[in-house]
């Protein structure tokens, strides 16, 4: 048994060593636990007090709004992630779409935002450890414990961890279970009186609280970040992102309703460990232990995810040259990006230390982190629009937002983010704007000049770089080139729905052995120059873009084929002298190889009189028929006529009307296959015993005849029916032989 095919397959695999071996190992459940698990974290344990204080029971609405804003971002990110599964997440998309300036703003914003978030989690961690124990008290302890926790986390991350989804799943499961019990039992202890008045501080209180609690949703983005590792991404990425955000939002809203329903919001607002204070009223000391346990686990895991996410952002920024790659040198022994981790940890520690002086540090950190991410997600929405409009190569998302979600999602996303940001505390807006300004200054002083990333913005504003519909016309003869170019221009214009019309006129100068040092006779060059100059004049008359190409090659046919290939021609129109079967060639030494090998639609035209007039297309069943029909319609636009699609039937002993119906259906089928409307053509059916003669008689009435060439090219022979031969010989008008690609 031969092992040949297997070998080949193995070598293919070997090739991919150089490329990107992406492990698609994450299924739906894994993606959900990853997204949900990263999200459900410290935010919901720490913030309900602050939220209740600022918005009353309506703080549940703040969570709902924040969840909705997150959902919009998740939708836009889903599309971008399936289009570009590459490390860096939001930063990367913005950098690609909007260029290095916005890339720097978002990169620095996300990095600092993650540091704010990490500090926020660790102070919350300190609060939940300190508050339940009576003799520990005060800010110093909270900050000190936060720092200890942070140092431990940094140590673990410095040495590196192996993926342990089992451990993560257990902690996420425990956290979620405790919250579910809290909600499920708590519902029965809600005192409706506590929920009155529902919104004591009005809508502005609700919106300003949204800015604080938005941090509780950080984490869904991780699904986009690991897009390259997700199986069946077009389905699982959007599904798991949307579902995890929606479920977590519902959970948060319920927690908030229960919390404000069980304890009056005023007293809830005084507590640094609100959820625990609620739980004690109906779950007793055991409930407190469980909540404190869950809160501590949540703080650690959230902070850890932030540190991991920060090192991913720094990696991506280093890769793109936005920051120095020095951060990304991995540890020689542990293989971790230890410098990035140390830098993140150092700044986070400083932020925690600020807590010694500033009483409202928790709310400030939460809001500042939210600010950074709201700005980042606004730019993500804009990036989505830019990607859609610029439609760059390689951006081919397997999940695209359907209408009307696009453009509603990005527009609403930007608007809502701005509304939330506008209601934030002044100091936060100042800090956040400061970070944005830092990103701008960083770009101006460091990045610019190093990074060539231009972004797609200008392309997006100009609109989609239109695909051309390119018709290639080899020209050699000054007498026929006007006619050929007219036909080509008509064809290109008629296909405007498929692309911007573009003509390429090519002239090939044959030489025996082309070399850059060889002198081609001067008058031939002169001839070529004149030819192509007049081609430009003709094109200008016909309002079509024309490019000219000159080629020096030993074989004209081969050279034309090369040009067709290079130009990715959609159609080629070749002139031919109307003679057949001469010197062992069907159409001629130059044309034969082109007819045999060209991979685009091809028209071989012999021009016998000036007017194209009304074309007639000979339609016989076969897959060439639609191409022939369409070509006749294209040529008809030269003189603004309606072409006739002709079919000739033999009576076959039955009535003429039977044959006529038969012929008509052949024509209509072909026209439908060509996508023609019934108004774009006339139908003529001729019933006759001598088909050949009937065709010649019928087509002689027209100025131009389109006939199909069979595409069954076996070997080197170009099949050529007797009918075609008779048309070429006996019809006085222009003849175009059409071959589909």
């Amino acid at each position, binding site marked *: *048994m031969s*092992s040949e095919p*297997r*070998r080949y*397959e*193995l*070598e293919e*695999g*070997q090739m*991919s*060593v150089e490329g*990107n*071996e992406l*492990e*698609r*190992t994450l299924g739906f459940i894994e993606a959900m636990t990853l997204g949900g698990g990263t999200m459900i974290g410290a935010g919901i344990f720490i913030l309900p007090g602050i939220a209740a204080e600022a918005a009353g029971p309506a703080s549940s609405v703040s969570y709902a709004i924040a969840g909705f804003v997150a959902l919009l971002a998740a939708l836009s990110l889903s599309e971008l992630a399936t289009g570009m599964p590459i*490390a860096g997440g939001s930063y990367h998309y913005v950098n690609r779409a909007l260029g290095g300036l916005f890339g720097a703003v978002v990169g620095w914003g996300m990095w600092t935002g993650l540091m704010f978030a990490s500090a926020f989690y660790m102070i919350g961690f300190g609060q939940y450890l300190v508050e339940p124990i009576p003799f520990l008290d005060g800010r110093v302890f909270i900050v000190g414990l936060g720092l200890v926790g942070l140092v431990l986390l940094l140590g673990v*991350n410095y040495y*590196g*961890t*192996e*993926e342990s989804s089992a451990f993560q799943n257990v902690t996420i499961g425990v956290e979620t279970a405790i919250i579910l019990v809290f909600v499920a039992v708590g519902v029965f202890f809600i005192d409706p009186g506590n929920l009155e008045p529902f919104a004591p501080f009005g809508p502005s209180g609700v919106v300003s609280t949204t800015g604080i609690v938005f941090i509780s949703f950080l984490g869904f983005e991780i699904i986009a970040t690991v897009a390259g*590792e997700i199986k069946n991404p077009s389905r699982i990425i959007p599904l798991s992102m949307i579902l995890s955000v929606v479920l977590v939002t519902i959970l948060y809203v319920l927690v908030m309703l229960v919390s404000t329903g069980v304890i009056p919001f005023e007293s809830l607002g005084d507590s640094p460990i609100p959820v625990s204070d609620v739980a004690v009223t109906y779950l007793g000391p055991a409930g407190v232990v469980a909540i404190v346990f869950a809160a501590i686990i949540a703080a650690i895991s959230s902070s850890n995810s932030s540190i*991991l996410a920060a*090192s*991913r952002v720094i*990696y991506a920024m280093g*890769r793109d040259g936005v920051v120095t790659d020095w951060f*990304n*040198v*991995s540890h020689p022994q*542990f*293989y*971790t*990006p230890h410098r990035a*981790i140390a830098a993140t940890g150092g700044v986070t520690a400083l932020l925690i230390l600020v807590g010694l002086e500033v009483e409202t540090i928790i709310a400030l950190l939460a809001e500042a982190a939210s600010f950074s991410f709201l700005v980042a997600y606004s730019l993500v929405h804009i990036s989505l629009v830019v990607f859609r409009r610029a439609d760059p190569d390689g951006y081919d998302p397997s999940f695209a937002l359907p209408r009307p979600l696009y453009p509603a999602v990005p527009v609403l996303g930007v608007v809502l983010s701005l509304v939330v940001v506008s209601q934030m505390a002044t100091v936060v807006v100042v800090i956040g704007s400061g970070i944005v300004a830092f990103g701008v200054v960083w770009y101006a002083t460091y990045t610019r000049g190093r990074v060539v990333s231009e972004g797609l913005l200008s392309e997006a504003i100009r609109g989609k770089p239109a695909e051309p519909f390119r018709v290639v016309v080899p020209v050699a003869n000054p007498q026929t080139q006007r006619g050929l170019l007219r036909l080509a221009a008509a064809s290109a214009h008629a296909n405007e729905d498929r692309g911007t019309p573009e003509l390429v006129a090519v002239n090939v100068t044959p030489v025996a052995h082309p070399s850059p040092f060889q002198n081609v006779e001067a008058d031939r060059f002169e001839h070529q120059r004149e030819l192509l100059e007049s081609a430009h004049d003709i094109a200008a008359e016909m309002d079509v873009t024309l490019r000219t190409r000159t080629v020096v090659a030993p074989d004209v046919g081969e050279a034309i084929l090369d040009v067709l290939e290079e130009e990715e021609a959609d159609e080629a129109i070749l002139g031919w002298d109307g003679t057949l079967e001469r010197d062992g060639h069907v159409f001629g030494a130059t044309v034969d190889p082109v007819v045999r090998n060209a991979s685009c639609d091809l028209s071989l035209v012999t021009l016998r009189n000036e007017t194209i007039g009304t074309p007639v297309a000979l339609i016989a069943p076969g897959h060439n028929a639609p191409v022939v029909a369409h070509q006749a319609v294209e040529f008809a636009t030269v003189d603004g006529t309606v072409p006739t699609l002709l079919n000739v039937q033999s009576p076959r002993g039955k009535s003429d009307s039977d044959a006529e119906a038969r012929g008509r259906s052949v024509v209509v089928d072909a026209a439908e296959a060509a996508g023609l409307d019934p108004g774009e053509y006339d139908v003529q059916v001729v019933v006759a015993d001598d088909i050949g003669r009937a065709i010649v008689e019928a087509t002689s009435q027209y100025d131009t005849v389109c006939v199909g060439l069979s595409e069954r090219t076996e070997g080197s022979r170009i099949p050529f029916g007797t009918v075609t031969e008779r048309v070429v010989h006996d019809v006085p008008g222009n003849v175009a032989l059409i071959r589909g690609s």
Partner: protein
Amino acid sequence: MTRIDELRILVPVDVSETEPPPLDVLDHLGAVEVVLLGYFPVPDQAEPALLRDQYGPEATDRLDAVADEHGNPAEVLVFTHDREATIDRIADEYDCDAVLTAGRSTVVDRVLVPLRGDVNLDRILAVVADLLLAGNETATLFHSVAEDADPTQGELLLMGAVDRLVEYGVERDRVDWQLSKGGDPQTDIVELGAAYDLVVLGETEPPLRERIIGDVLSAIVDALDVPSLIVRDVE
């Protein structure tokens, strides 16, 4: 049930280690096709691409060196967060019947084949048959029954398995069997394995990635000094 015909095994090698693993066993397996998987474990904190950029050439050299020593088999190099998932995926992709773990054996004369029951039995025997037909080893089939159980059940299993190998074309004098009563199968296999050059074990559902860490199979594989060949359960 058919023979596998062309036995293909996956040999994972950690290319972040400077020392190549002991793989002498590869040179004594006869005409068995080998796919060499070089994996570079990437910690959670780093992007695989980051380490690929920094250690790619080094890892390739190490993998090439291992391949050069053992008859230039096909190579695959992967930077991965999840070693087990990678082994599973590459084994699938390259259609490998078994995964070989490294171990100290300079020759392969005696192969131990512990059988647990009907689980995955067909595939294990097919692989063993191919292994024996490709080289000159002798094999001992091993089964362990509980103290109070009827030993004839185990004998039937073992004798049936021997017959099966003979049907595949293995000479009967190259196969014997051993039944243990009442011992802990895990300890028995590890103790017995010391006297052999290679142990063939059967993977069972759930797949390899979960099996290798933290269960009986991986405990055995870890405790064994000699290389082991883990037969995949692909159906």
